[in-house]
């Protein structure tokens, strides 16, 4: 079944090179995205149906596709599939309008559009594979494929800074992922010690680990390499340098995909490996939790500080992504129960961050620059985008009704019980970030244009598809926030968290 999904997307990529006019290519892109999302939801739905039907959920080590299969689907993977589906669909719809506008203004040529519509489906396909694959080698290849497929997208605008960002992106991420490969090899070696085992399947690793057949010393080495390697791809602080450059130079629909969903997918794959390490080390995640806690706190504090002096609004959003990844890591580091808030945080952050990047894209189209200084008086010139952007930003900054608020409060609740000082550091950094972002965005929106000349002629803003998407995702985030408050919502989240730590309450 997942193979068909990958095939459809591959076909979408190929059709980009058919001798069709530019408009048809964009339509085909949207169609491919729609079909693939529908199929993804169809695949992922049985996982949710079980929970909502209030009977116990198929969550054992086998997953939906049976023990030995190449693919592995449990509730967490199902949630990720759902997220990838929604955000890739919205990004496709928005890029339809975004590229049309760019093409009309002659910034982008036809070949560029062909590149775009060949790369994006491949990227989405590799993400689907990364989430579903049970085979470790395939997982590694999928993650590396996400990097390679987005390199040209980062260098899409052919500007010097864009190519520089692409160069750094491809080099650093490939370096990171190869370290990750070292970790993967060591894990398979540690798991395959006694019997010859060439199955490379995560589920088999878990069975061997529960049987106690894993060499723990080697497993520790493997986890360190894995954490630093894949951590580079997630953007934990010491290894985050590529992220602000890459996410701010790509066209906005792609940076919405990158920031919104790619970071979560890679984090989930890291958690899969962590699960094997936890079962092997039999300490219920204490040893591995330390990594997440330390790197989590770092990844919250440092970006929060850098945001204070940030001058480019897209880089500001990129740093906020690092910070939210740090938040999820911090939550995971709080112990076995910490996974629940982390899992709650993922959809909220994905929906809101992608909508923010899309809004930033809209502002970029009108103001032609991602630098914040010349962007002024947005409230009066782009009233619809500004209002939606501000509301989404507030939801992201954990204002009550949003899902992010619920998850952050649970996180701080658990954090205070056993790690007092790190939690206080986190609370203060969240405030610093809150203020930095609000002040930055507020200056952009409400600085009145000094002279009408500097205002430049700006066509009155019409109601376009970006606003529709932003509204839908905003409402989804708020609905999610309220859904978390109901007992059924909590039950679903706990069952998703259980897929990572079966011993959970």
């Amino acid at each position, binding site marked *: 079944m997942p193979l068909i999904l990958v095939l459809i997307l591959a076909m979408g990529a190929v059709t980009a090179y058919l001798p069709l006019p530019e408009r048809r290519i964009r339509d085909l892109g949207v169609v491919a995205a729609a079909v693939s999302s529908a199929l993804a939801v169809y695949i992922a739905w049985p996982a949710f149906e079980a929970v909502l039907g209030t009977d116990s959920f198929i969550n054992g080590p086998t997953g939906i596709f049976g023990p030995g299969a190449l693919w592995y689907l449990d509730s967490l993977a199902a949630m990720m599939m759902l997220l990838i589906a929604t955000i890739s669909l919205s990004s496709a719809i928005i890029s339809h309008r975004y590229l049309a506008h760019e093409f009309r203004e002659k910034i982008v040529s036809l070949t560029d559009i062909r590149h775009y519509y060949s790369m994006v489906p491949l990227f989405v396909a590799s993400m689907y594979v990364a989430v579903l694959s049970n085979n470790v080698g395939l997982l590694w290849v999928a993650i590396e494929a996400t990097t390679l497929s987005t390199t040209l997208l980062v260098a899409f605008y052919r500007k010097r800074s864009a*190519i520089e960002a692409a160069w750094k992106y491809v080099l650093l991420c490939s370096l990171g992922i190869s370290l990750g490969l070292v970790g993967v090899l060591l894990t398979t070696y540690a798991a395959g010690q006694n019997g010859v085992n060439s199955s*490379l399947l995560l589920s088999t690793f878990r069975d061997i680990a529960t049987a106690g057949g894993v060499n723990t010393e080697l497993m520790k080495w493997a986890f360190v390499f894995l954490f630093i390697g894949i951590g580079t791809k997630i953007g934990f602080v010491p290894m985050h340098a590529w992220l602000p450059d890459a996410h701010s130079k790509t066209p906005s629909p792609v940076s919405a995909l990158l920031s919104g969903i790619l970071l979560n997918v890679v984090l989930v794959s890291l958690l899969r490996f962590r699960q094997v390490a936890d079962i092997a080390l039999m300490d219920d995640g204490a040893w591995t939790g330390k990594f997440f806690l330390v790197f989590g706190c770092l990844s919250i504090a440092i970006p929060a500080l850098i945001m204070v002096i940030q001058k480019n609004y897209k880089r500001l959003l990129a740093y906020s992504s690092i910070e939210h990844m740090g938040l999820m890591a911090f939550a995971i580091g709080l112990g076995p129960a910490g996974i629940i808030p982390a899992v709650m945080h993922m959809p909220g952050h994905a929906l809101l961050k992608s909508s923010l990047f899309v809004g930033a894209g809209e502002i970029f189209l009108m103001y032609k620059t991602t630098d914040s200084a010349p962007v002024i008086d947005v409230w009066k010139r782009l009233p619809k985008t500004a209002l939606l952007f501000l509301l989404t930003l507030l939801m992201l900054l954990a204002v009550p009704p949003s899902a992010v608020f619920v998850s952050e409060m649970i996180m701080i609740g658990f954090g205070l019980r056993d790690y007092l000082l790190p939690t206080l550091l986190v609370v203060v950094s969240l405030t610093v970030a809150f203020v930095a972002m609000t002040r930055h965005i507020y200056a952009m929106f409400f600085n009145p244009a000094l002279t009408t000349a500097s205002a430049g002629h700006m066509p009155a803003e019409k109601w376009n598809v970006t606003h529709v998407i932003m509204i839908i995702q905003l409402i989804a985030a708020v609905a999610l926030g309220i859904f978390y408050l109901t007992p059924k919502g909590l039950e679903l989240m706990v069952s998703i968290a259980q897929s990572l730590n079966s011993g959970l309450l």
Partner: protein
Amino acid sequence: MITTFTSSEVTTIALAVSFLLCAFLGSGKFRLGQIIRYYALQSLFLAGLLVSMAAYGDEHLYLSALGVIIFKVILIPAIISTSAKRSSASGRLTSFVRPAPSYFVSGITLLLAVLAGMSIAPALEETDLILTVTAFAAMFLGGAMMAVRRDLYSQIIGFFTLENGIAILAAATLGAIPLLAEVGIFFTITIGALLMSVLSRRLKELYAVEDTGELRELVD
């Protein structure tokens, strides 16, 4: 600790040492042509190593050796040199460290690799120890090359030396990776090489940039 080695193991160790020697020498050279040739030689030794291991391991290794030869000895050097020639990049490579001290740096990284090997030794069987040490050595050499060198192409070569180190580690620890994973990894590496060369060519043609020192625009 010296255990008696069978004859085929002696050949593997000899090939591993010569592989390391090429990597070590490559790290000191400052002409593009030279480091590409050393990289090809290094991959050749890797293929030889795999063949020698196939003697007492399982026969899949023959196939992977063939893959190494096709991809790493022929294809990747070809891609890099064609893109360099087409964009008429100057062969001279620049680095933070002059040639003589760069050997010194490589020496230190080798020492570090041995140290790392020692500390992981208790967890491995006897025979794999030497190969793991070579793998670590190659990886660290590649990493040092990427960190020390300034220009674009030598960073690509540094990355691929690191890749070779990992290939050795795979061979040492797992013997034969299943075919699907092997092919996947090879393809990914080639596409990586392709992309990196495309980017460097664009940089060279559009902005006449060869040295990453000039790529420092994206700050804070």
